[in-house]
């Protein structure tokens, strides 16, 4: 309890820092620390699967994106200088935020007792999925439609990012070109870490069926390894018009939809699995989906095409 109270104070302190810090870079660093502390909170709330996701995506990948953007966005200070918000506006905003916080706090204190839960039905039907991790069972069996839509959302976000490229760069290579420094520490890191990281990513994905882990966490680690190799300049990001890249991106959603439709014939509903083949079918979906998600995450970090094909 003392640990929990200390952790909560720390989370709130870092969150306040990301809001009040004058320097954007400092605020972004604060946000990354905030994500890592939240991952600790998730462990304390007995949710190790979410803790892995929070640390990998909520803190790690989002942090990389924010750091990259904070160095590239033009300083807008000169536009806003001398427009210090009026004291009355500030007071009104504080009042509103305190009211919102108070309302949520009251709801937390008034939550029904005993708490409603779906844990029992999940446990009762876990054997039918052939999985040992209840969270993976929810993601891949009971609520597989959510997971399918989520992969589609990632794909749509990537299409949105790509379509920000100017016409002449359409189909070009995303992001800046990094020149490899053969004696640099980043090159050494990439050469040493990437093979190990790929193994760890595959392991996290594989154990997801019985232990904390799963496709999103594994895919994020694979994406991080991709980003590390491009940042170090060892391998350049492929141009977005490459056919193999596009096939890789749609392989996951396509297999997911195909097996979902086959569910009509096999078990009488969309995304229903026949009991004797449930685990096999889930694996057939998960492998391409993990690879597709890894590519989507890495390309979302890389950004829109910025270099033309012919240079």
């Amino acid at each position, binding site marked *: 309890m003392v640990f929990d109270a200390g952790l909560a104070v720390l989370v709130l302190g870092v969150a306040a820092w990301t809001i009040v810090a004058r320097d954007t870079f400092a605020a972004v660093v604060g946000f990354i620390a905030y994500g890592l502390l939240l991952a600790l909170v998730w462990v304390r709330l007995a949710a190790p699967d979410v803790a892995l996701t929070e640390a990998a995506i909520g803190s790690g990948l989002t942090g990389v994106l924010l750091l990259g953007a904070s160095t590239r966005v033009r300083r807008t200070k000169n536009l806003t200088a001398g427009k210090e918000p009026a004291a009355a506006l500030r007071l009104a905003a504080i009042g509103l935020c305190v009211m919102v916080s108070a309302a949520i706090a009251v709801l937390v*204190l008034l939550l029904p007792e005993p708490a409603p839960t779906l844990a029992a039905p999940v446990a009762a039907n876990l054997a039918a999925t052939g999985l040992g991790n209840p969270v993976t069972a929810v993601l891949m069996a009971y609520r597989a439609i959510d997971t399918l839509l989520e992969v589609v959302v990632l794909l749509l976000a990537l299409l949105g990012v790509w379509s920000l490229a100017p016409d002449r760069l359409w189909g070009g290579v995303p992001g800046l070109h990094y020149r490899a420094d053969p004696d640099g520490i980043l090159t050494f890191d990439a050469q040493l870490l990437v093979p190990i990281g790929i193994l760890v990513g595959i392991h996290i994905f594989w154990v997801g069926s019985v232990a904390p882990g799963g496709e999103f966490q594994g895919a994020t680690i694979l994406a991080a390894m991709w980003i590390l190799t491009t940042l170090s300049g060892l391998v350049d990001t492929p141009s977005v018009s490459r056919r193999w890249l596009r096939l890789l991106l749609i392989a996951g959603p396509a297999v997911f939809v195909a097996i979902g439709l086959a569910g009509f014939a096999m078990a009488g509903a969309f995304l229903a699995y026949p009991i004797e083949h449930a685990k096999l079918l889930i694996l057939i979906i998960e492998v391409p989906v993990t690879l597709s998600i890894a590519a989507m995450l890495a390309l979302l970090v890389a950004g829109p095409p910025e270099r033309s094909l012919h240079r």
Partner: protein
Amino acid sequence: MNAATLYGLCSAVLVGLGLYGLIMHPEPLRKILAFNLIGGGVFLLFGVVARRGAAAGFGGDPVPQALVITGLVVAFASTALALALLVRLSSEPGRANLPSEGSGEEPMGGGPL
């Protein structure tokens, strides 16, 4: 008060802090940051509800936990799109506003050949 309630109150304050940043910061990047702070608070509230629903030998209700994993990935996707829009907007010198009519600017024609 148990740990779940403590973190529930923590999530309430996080949403308030993020909302304040969203309203008061003039810089778009800081607004996106504050928006993600709110998201963290909302997800934490889900985690508290999940923890309270611990039953059947699980440490928490797996359904809201799975929803949070989905939510985290979707939040990342929307943040990536928002930041890409922001970088694109600031890379256009002097074009932070819509161009006036008949400014005579030729659109950059042609895709990659």
